[in-house]
């Protein structure tokens, strides 16, 4: 079973994503991480997901820093990342397009989210 790590400082967001994806019929296991630090902690414990949904605007450690750490680690650098953010400015959009594998604007459409996830997973396999 494919595992998707959702990194967001809002547990409600993670919950909503988990529930709506389940409802949409996906079989991926969701690893919730409530902060960037927790995300890295899970990774270090060898809980390596197939894809990370990464929020950008988080307190203490922003999505940019998490992204930077992932890309500078030979083990984690290949994990596909979809940015998930309420930001719609150019930087966020570009970050999704050029740095990560995709970008989804909050609040998202469940169908849209599922399609994008599927697409990225297909491409990385």
């Amino acid at each position, binding site marked *: 079973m494919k595992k998707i790590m959702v990194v967001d400082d*809002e547990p*409600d*967001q993670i*919950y*909503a*994503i988990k*529930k*709506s994806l389940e*409802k949409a019929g996906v079989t991926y296991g969701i690893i919730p991480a409530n902060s960037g630090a927790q995300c890295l902690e899970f990774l270090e414990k060898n809980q390596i997901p197939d894809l990370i949904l990464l929020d950008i*605007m988080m307190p203490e450690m922003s999505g940019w820093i998490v992204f930077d750490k992932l890309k500078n680690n030979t083990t984690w650098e290949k994990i596909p990342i979809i940015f998930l*953010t*309420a*930001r*719609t*400015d*150019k930087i966020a*959009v570009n970050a999704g397009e050029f740095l990560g594998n995709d970008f989804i604007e*909050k*609040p*998202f459409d*469940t169908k849209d989210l599922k399609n994008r996830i599927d697409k990225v997973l297909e491409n990385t396999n």
Partner: protein
Amino acid sequence: MDLTLLSISWILLAIFIAALAAWFFYYYIRDKDKRKLMFAIAFFLASVTYLFLSAGYNRIQSEHFILSNLYHWSMLPLMTALLFAISMSVFKNKKIDILFRIYPVILIFSLIPVFLPFSIEEIVTIIQRSMAIAVLTISGYLLIKTRDFFSLIFLMSMICFTAAGISLARNMDYLSILLFLLSHTFLTIIFIISFSPTKSGNEGIESYFSLTDRLKTTEKALHESEERYKRIVENTIDAIMLTQPNGIVSYVSPACKKVLGYAPEDLVGKVPQIFHPADAKKINETLSQALDSEHGSDFEYRIKTKDRETRWVSHSWSPILKDGKLQMIVSSVRDITNRKKMEEKIAEKVKTLEGSELATLNIMEDLQETISSLEQAEREIKELNEDLEQRVKERTTEVENLLNQKDEFVNQLGHDLKNPLGPLINLLPLIEEQETNLESKEMFEVINRNVAYMKNLVTKTMQLAQLNAPSTELFVEDTILLDEINKVIERSKLLFEENNIKVESGVNKDIMVKADKLRLEELFDNLIGNSVKYSQNGGHITIDAKEDGKFVVVSVKDEGVGMTSGQLDHIFEEFYKVDESRHDFNSSGLGLSICKRIVEKHGGNIWAESKGKGKGTVMFFTIPTSNKKTSRTDYNSKSN
């Protein structure tokens, strides 16, 4: 007639005297001097007398009255000529011509009795003696008066004549001949001495006998010179004036009429009172000073003409002195009124100029002051400006900071608003699905609709805020217009199908624009979305574009509800809704404001046209064209 020694002596005398007469006549011909002719006649007739005497007429009583009378008469012309000469010398009578005209008349009239048939001896004797006495007396008087040599000789000549006459009466013929010879000789001596070039006397008897050509020439030259000077004086434009030391004018040239405004006769013989009262004192002072000096001078003053007109004159004068004593003043007076007027005008002009120069100086001073105050003001303004610049800089920084803070705030707010919307949007439909109660289902629908509206509102507000932020920059690149349109059409396929809308694009695949791709998609999203929204019961949406110079004009045409002109004026205002009474959860009222900002950020224009309610709407916008041309040809330009 017997030729005795006596008669021969008389004849010789007669010849000698006739010769003298001829000599006089020669000089008359040469000099045209009638006095010489007079003496020539007188001497000639005297020689006739001597011829008669050679015939012994002094002794015989001829029966021939005429000859006898002629003998007695023949000495009369000489006596008359001598009387005229002495008279003219004494009375300084210069009218020789008149005397000469009288002389022949006297001769002719005195000749008439000669031809009468009786003797005129007694009458002639009386006349001759009277004349002899007169001539002698006058000669004596002249000698006493002049005491000169000529008068003495003349008197001696007269004495000889008188003595000759007495001798003749006493029958002392030889003595008589001698005395006659002497008397004629004395007369001739006067003439001869008068010829001498060394003599130039003009006094006494000599004046009468000085009949030389030199004198005549000198007189003539003098006369001519006098005439010349007279002409010059009388024709010169200046008034020439001769004034006696006592101030009386003795001569003034005719020009004085023009120069002084007085006729010569108004001034001659008077002390002229023509000075202007204002200048009279000055003139008198100058005159008295000038008269004390031996040199001439000139000065200018005003006069009053006879017509009471004021004139300016320039008066040059020079004294004529004799033995250091002033004899006469020669003046030349010129009218300088015009010159003076000109000078006054010039002086006035100079004064005016000086005045204006002063005024200019004042203006310059004022200007200097103004410049100083301006410079001061400039300095102050500069300081103020520097201060202001500093303050503006500070303010700008402040504003920039505030704007950055605002951008940050809007982003943060958007993020913070959007985040809680996520669970709502994602979870509510899940619950709604599980709900079987119809009433609850209905309530979920209401909630869902409002949440969607809130999502739309937050998203659009965020977009507009970002577009309004000065820090927001476009990422402009050469873009194939049709590609972007097709992307949007592709994305909205489902929407078109749901609303039974057919979309047509007549856009040429070659058209390239300079645009921010994302913004351009956003723009088309909004415009096409609007067209769909307001097209009830299906219809066509036509997208077209044509190049127009530096811009491409893009149009999105629908067959929807259309708009009134009043609505057209407001559609680009923020939060404006065409139908406010309708609570439209699909419309935030920000879509066209966002479109307007996007187009303006690209340097273009946006506008809408509608023929009215129910007649559809066409949205137009312009976007800069790109110089690059696409080479792609494989794109499907039609979609539905």
